[in-house]
Structure formats: structure tokens, C-alpha cells
């Protein structure tokens, strides 16, 4: 507990002076629950947690930390899946959940301005009564903060049609490592004044600045949706269906798949009536005007049938649609209860290579004697190989490491990326250099060095700098 030793008692006193009573946590019972995020098998003890309520407090904390040389790890609700918000030795955990005000919804410009501790779902809930829509829907949207989404450029189920978090960020307020507060971007649809600095901070994982406000784009809310569930006896048949749907210029909002192993686990757990011989199940959803979704729904069903689907079910009403979506919604739950530890990956390949990566993952499971199931976003080429294991079994965890390494290598070979939506954090850090040329890997570090030369913010995440004093 470096921070709490000798001179650092003064640091705690300084922090205490800038935040309200109760917003600085130092007792072990308070700190232990901040030692992890949503990532499996990773933790590090926090030495203090501070929960500021204004940008002024954040700026003051950054200045105090900078003067004391104590690193800062920023976090929201701690649902991240790459270890990005795990505390660092002797560091301050800066938790933004108390900065949760929606400041302005502007229906004339279709924007919403909010503090970054606002829950993702609350943004869409606020947009709804105005007939507006905030599409990015990461799995944790009921509790994840928008700040965490922006810092990790989170995806979700609607990526194919609606894009990811970055596509909705128009502006932001950022506290720099110096403690200065800057505003980047604007409400303008077109804005090319200078570098697109806001884009540098999207997906920066808290290593460049602390995002305290964000201005987001909203879109008109789709009036109707059609849901279909199709089962196939091979992943290839499912893939052909998906390709032909997109060739027909239908862009569904959801195009999700489950592999054979996931189908089996889902059926055991939720009894949703998937055919036992199903090797791939695809959930398709089209949204938009009533007449369009009807037509697209019929077209997608016809394409699935033409490709030899074992079963195609079209939702008759909302309740039926919910039932059909159950197979995909329960996929993770069904897998997570099988073994004590569930490792969720998010490799992504060009859509046309999806079948190859899914069958490769199956092979890897056999090779390393591991239980691996895969589900994910077909339309985005974003797959979630899910390893079911036990972190207390050292020998098995070694095999997990080998399997991950194999999967990452194959992904890169296929022209893919080791992380599509979770971020690098700590979990992918050892593999990042493989995906980059030396020059492009160094460029990442140069950006970090330019903005945060002393390594104050989230040091040791994404990559290591030789200068990192604390990791």
C-alpha cells in the first residue's frame, strides 16, 4: 500500500479537502470491491477510491495526483471486459458514477449532452419520449456508464446497421493530465476545424484524459421491427444466408449467431426449442417503417429457406419476438453457469472470414482440451469465443493462455483484430504488438507520450512504456 505510507497521508488529506465527506474511500471493506471490473481472473487491490461530483473536483484531483506522482485509474460502473479499469499499484481510483446528470436534450439538433457517469440505457430512455433513439447497446447497457462506453468505443448488437459508440460522439469535455479542462467537437454536423481531437479520446481507455461530459448524436426511433430465428445444420449455410441478405441490400439491425456448442447449452438451460441438429442459429431483426420491415422480414425468411434452413420462425407479435430473441439473450447466461470461470473474448474478422474463425476456434478447443463456445455478431464479423474454465486450476489456465494465443494469431492472419469492442486494457496488452507493424505500434506510444508524458493516467494499460514508474 505505497500510497498510504508516510508522506501520502498528506495526499489523502489533500484529496479529502476537495471532495464531499464520504466521497473518499480508504477502508479495506470499501476498497476491496473496487479491485476488479467485469474481466475474469484479474484483480489488483485499490489503495483509495474517490468519487467526485463535478469537473472542478476532477481537475483538482488530477492536479493533486500529478504533484504527488500518484497515477489515476478512471472508471465508471466497472463492467469492462479487458481489465482496463483495474487499479494500479499506489494509484487513485477515480470513479465517475456520481456525475450522472443529463444536461440537455436538444430535439432541434438531435443531440444529448450529459455527464459521463450517466448510465447508457438512461440516455436511450431519455431520448424515447421525443421519438429519438440512441442505438449503441453493449450487453451491460443497463449499468455501464456512457463514459466507459466512449473510453472503450463500445459496440453492441446493432453495429451492422447503426455503427458503434464513436459514430455518435459529437463532442466532449476532457480533463487533461495537466488538470486543464478542454472542450472538443461541437453540435455541428460538419466540423473540420483542426484535428478531430475528440476521436483521439474515443477508445483511449482512460490513458489520455478524463472525459467528464459527452455530446451525443441521436437518430429517429424506428417505428417497427420484425424478428426471425433461423436454424441451420452448418455454419456455412448460415454464413451464405447472411451474405445473400446483405447482397440483397437488406441491412438488418441485428444479425446474431450461436454456434453448435452454444445452441446445446442454451437448449439445456432455457429449453427454447432449438432443433437438436442445429449447428448454427441466426437471430435476424430488421427495423424501420412498418411496410419496409414486413417486406424485409419476408425476404430474409425466403433467403434462409433457400439456403436449407432446418427451421425458420417469424415473430407474430412483440411477445413472440421476445421469445425468439431468448435464445440469443440467454447465450451468455447459459454458458456462464457451466464452469466457475468464464472468459469472454471479442476477436473480429472481415465478415467474409467469419466461418473460418468459428471453425478454427472449435479446433483450438479440441487441441487444448478446453470447452469453448462461440456466439456473436454475424453482420460485424465480431465473434465471442467463450472459454469455460476454472481460474484456480493452474494447468488448465496455461492451456487457456495457449488457446487464446492461437486464436489471436489466426484472427490477425485473417485480417482481423484481437478486440472488436472490449478494448485492450490489461487482458490484450501482451498480444497488441502482434497486430501492428513496429512503426504503427510506436505511434500509439508517441501519442501517449505527447499527451501524458509522466504516465499519470491509467499507466500500464494498452501497452507498457519504459518510463512507466508505477507498473
Amino acid at each position, binding site marked *: 500500500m505505497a500510497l498510504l505510507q508516510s508522506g501520502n497521508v498528506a495526499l489523502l488529506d489533500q484529496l479529502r479537502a476537495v471532495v464531499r465527506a464520504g466521497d473518499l474511500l480508504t477502508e479495506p471493506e470499501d476498497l476491496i470491491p473496487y479491485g*476488479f471490473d467485469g474481466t475474469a481472473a484479474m484483480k489488483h487491490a485499490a489503495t483509495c477510491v474517490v468519487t467526485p461530483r463535478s469537473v472542478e473536483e476532477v481537475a483538482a484531483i488530477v492536479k493533486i495526483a500529478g504533484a504527488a506522482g500518484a497515477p489515476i485509474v478512471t472508471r465508471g460502473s*466497472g*463492467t469492462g471486459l479487458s481489465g482496463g479499469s483495474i487499479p494500479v499499484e499506489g494509484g487513485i481510483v477515480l470513479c465517475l458514477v456520481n456525475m450522472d446528470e443529463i444536461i440537455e436534450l436538444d430535439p432541434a439538433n438531435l443531440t444529448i449532452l450529459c455527464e459521463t457517469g450517466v448510465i447508457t440505457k438512461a440516455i436511450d430512455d431519455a431520448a424515447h419520449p421525443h421519438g429519438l433513439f440512441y442505438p449503441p447497446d453493449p450487453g451491460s447497457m443497463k449499468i455501464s456508464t456512457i463514459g466507459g462506453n466512449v473510453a472503450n468505443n463500445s459496440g453492441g448488437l446493432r453495429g451492422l446497421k447503426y455503427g458503434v459508440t464513436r459514430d455518435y460522439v459529437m463532442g466532449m469535455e476532457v480533463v487533461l493530465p495537466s488538470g486543464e479542462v478542454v472542450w472538443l467537437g461541437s453540435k455541428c454536423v460538419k466540423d473540420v476545424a483542426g484535428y478531430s481531437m475528440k476521436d483521439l479520446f474515443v477508445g483511449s481507455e482512460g490513458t489520455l484524459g478524463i472525459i467528464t461530459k459527452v455530446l451525443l448524436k441521436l437518430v429517429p426511433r424506428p417505428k417497427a421491427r420484425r424478428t426471425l430465428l433461423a436454424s441451420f445444420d452448418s455454419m456455412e449455410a448460415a454464413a451464405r444466408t447472411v451474405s445473400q441478405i446483405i447482397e440483397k441490400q437488406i441491412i438488418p439491425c441485428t444479425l446474431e449467431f450461436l454456434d453448435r456448442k452454444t445452441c446445446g447449452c442454451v437448449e439445456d438451460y432455457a429449453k427454447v426449442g432449438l432443433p437438436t441438429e442445429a449447428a448454427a442459429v441466426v437471430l435476424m431483426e430488421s427495423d424501420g417503417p412498418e411496410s419496409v420491415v414486413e417486406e424485409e422480414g419476408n425476404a430474409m425468411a425466403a433467403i434462409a429457406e433457400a439456403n436449407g434452413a432446418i427451421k425458420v420462425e417469424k415473430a407474430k407479435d412483440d411477445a413472440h419476438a421476445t421469445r425468439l430473441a431468448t435464445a440469443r439473450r440467454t447465450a451468455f447466461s447459459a454458458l456462464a453457469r457451466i464452469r466457475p470461470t468464464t472468459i469472454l473474448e471479442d476477436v473480429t474478422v472481415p465478415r467474409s472470414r467469419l466461418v473460418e474463425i468459428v471453425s478454427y476456434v472449435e479446433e483450438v478447443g479440441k487441441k487444448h482440451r478446453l470447452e469453448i463456445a462461440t456466439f456473436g455478431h454475424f453482420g460485424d464479423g465480431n465473434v465471442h469465443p467463450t472459454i469455460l474454465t476454472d481460474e484456480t486450476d493452474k494447468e488448465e489456465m496455461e492451456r487457456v493462455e495457449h488457446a487464446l494465443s492461437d486464436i489471436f494469431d489466426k484472427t490477425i492472419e485473417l485480417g482481423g483484430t484481437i478486440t472488436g469492442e472490449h478494448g485492450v486494457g490489461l487482458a490484450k496488452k501482451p498480444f497488441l504488438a502482434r497486430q501492428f507493424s513496429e512503426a504503427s505500434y510506436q505511434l500509439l506510444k508517441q501519442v501517449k507520450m505527447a499527451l501524458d508524458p509522466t504516465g499519470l493516467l491509467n499507466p500500464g494499460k494498452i501497452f507498457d512504456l519504459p518510463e512507466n514508474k508505477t507498473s
Partner: protein
Amino acid sequence: MSEAGPLTPLKYLGDLDYSVLQQCMHCGMCLPACPTYLETKKERNSPRGRIALMRSIADGDLKVTKEFGEEMYYCLGCLACTTACPAGVNYPQLFENARAEVEYHGVLFNPERRFWRWLTLDQLFSKPWMLRAVGRLLWIYQVSGLCWLVRKSGLLWLAPKNLRELEPTTPVIQRHFSDALIEEREAPATSKYRVGLLTGCVQDLIFSNVNRATADVLLENGCEVTTPRSQGCCGSLHAHNGDLDQATERARALLDRFDLATLDAIITNAAGCGSHLKHFSNLLKSDPDYSDRATEWDRKVKDISEWLVEIDFRKPEKTRGGESVTATYHEACHLCHGQGISSQPRDVLRAIPGLELVELENATHCCGSAGIYNITQPEQAGKLQKEKVACVQKTGASLVATANPGCHLQIQNGLGESAEVVHPVSLLAEAYRNEKHS
């Protein structure tokens, strides 16, 4: 104060199968479901935070401290987290073992707390005759005018503060307890099933009429009802409050009262009891004399709504001139989260002629009763009660149906005269009665 020393070994969290602790993957999906996390936004007040603390204790990284003890008692035990959990963490088991560990280490010890625990857990709720005797005295206090006199005279100001605040919320004791209202064996004209009826403890004193109604609907549906005398508390109160030894003793006592082999089901109408009663095998797994019977027992315990739907209960016929009424349904935590029973009580309500069921916003949110939480944590309980009352008022319903005595009292106290709280089975019994009178 007896802070646990480093040498005090763990008794409950240490013995627990580690995989139960490990099953939590700290994804955070429980956070938006947890009333105490939503109140404070501090991780320690969340389910995954509490599990992290329990795990630290099991790992030897944290001692059983007063802070830990207070945290375990700040948890409502509403189990909303278990419904939200994608990984199927057995939170009830963790929570009961953690509280038992807290009690074993005595970290919350003070003489006043010790006295109340002794009076309630060791005496009143362990000795059926004593609970009934106290119930009878309370009834005399309430009906004799003494209660009125005490309230008017200002004598209450002599009582300790927390007793003074609780006195007006004291539930009204029934004139007759269950044994006086229900024969030990009652049979319908033709029997299709044989069931045992649990009368409970609080239910027996305050809602013996609900027990009678339960027996009535069972008889209407071809069930022969056996109701053993002087059953007493099932031990759920003990288990939820860190006294697993007494809870085990109560479980044995209750098992001894029923001839399980001759019964198709054991019926309970109190959600808090039901969610405990269905897990006797956990308590008795290392007792060779009881473990098999406990497993059979777990299988046979049914909530009354669950059982009625299972046997396809008879829908009462419409009667002439019956008035229509708007009702809403509050889901007791230990029914929806604890037992996964959500549609069946609604099926019962929808079967009642002239009753229009309107959905309650946040129907599955805890009302703050949570066993004795409203007594131990009145502030947080009060906030939840207010939220619940506001939701009920939005529906405009004149009846609120709910299937747990704690919720019943908590919501009725919050609503005052504006709406009436009732058990679904009481409404069904009434509808059957109306058929005969029309």
C-alpha cells in the same frame, strides 16, 4: 466489543464450497437490480461487492470486522440480484452463511442487540407456545382499550425511542389463531390430493384468516388438508439473521410434524417462508436421520399459487350483481426472486370474476419489509416503502394483492386508508363463497 482476532477460525464462509463464491464473475449485472447500490452507488453496497468481501474473508485477506457485519445487515436479502445474475450465483446461501459468520464472531455485539436477538430468535420464534402467549397479550392490549389509553395518555413517551416509533405500526392480532379456525384434518366431498398446510408464525397470529382462506381454496379443489397443531416458525427468520443452528433445529421440528410419505404437497402461503422451506436439504445435508426426508420435503413444498396452477384450479363462476374492482399485484421478493413464481399469482387474480388486474410499475422491487429489515434499518426501509406506495397510487387500484405477511403489513402501513392489501388466495376464497350465496 469483541472484534474477531486473527486466530478466530471461520466457521461458515470457510466451510462453504469455494465454487459458490467463485461463481460470481463480477460482471456487474446485479448492480441495477440492487436497492442499496442504487441508493449509495458504492460497490460495497452491491451484491458483487458483498461477494468480493466474503471471498476476501474466505481467502484470509480480510478479517470478520464490524464494518463487514454492518454491510451484511445493510443488505435487504431481497434476492433481486439472483434474478439479474447471468451466472446463477447462489446468493441466498452466501448471504445466510455470511450473516452466520458475523454472528459467530460477535462483531456486532452490544447488550441491547443481544437482548432483542435473544427475545425474538431464541424465545418467541423458537417456542410456538410463547409466541402465541405474547400474541394473546397483544390482542388483549389492542382490543381492551388499553392501546387507545396508552396512545392518548402520552405514556408511550416513557418507552425507548425505537419501541415508541414501532408501536403505531404494530399489526393487529387476530382474535382466533389458525388452530382454532382450521381442523387438524379437513376433507372435501371427493379427494384428489392430500396436502399438508403450513400455518407459519406471523401468519398464524396476524393473518390466520389467510390460512383459513388457503384451506378453503384447497378444499374447493379436491385437496384433503392436514394442518398439524402448534407448528411454530419454520426457521427462515433464524436463517436470514445468521442463526443457522436454530434454523436447522426448527427444520427438524417441522419435518417431524408432517407425515411426508402420505402427502402430495406441503402448502405455504407466505413467500418468505416458502423460499426458505424449499431448501431444508441444504441445512440438513449432513444429518443422516433427516437428509433424505429433507430432499423429499424440498420437492413437495409448494406456494399456494404455484400449487393451484399446477393442479389447474377451478375458476370461480360469475355471480349476479357482483361489483367490479381494480386490483394490482406486488411481487414479494421471496416469491419472484426467491422462488421464480411470478405468473401464477396473476393467474389466480385473473380468474376472479369482476376483478380487473392492472400492472404495478416496478412490481418486483422490494417494499422495504425484507423480514425484520424495517425494524433494523428503518431509514432505507422507509424510502423503499414510499416508492412502493407511489407506484401503487399511480395505478388507481383499490386493492393490492401480495403473498407475504411482511410485504402485506409494510405496504398497508404505507398506504393507510387509501387502498386495501389482500392475499390473492383470500380473494379466490371469497369468489368461491360468493358462488354459493348467489
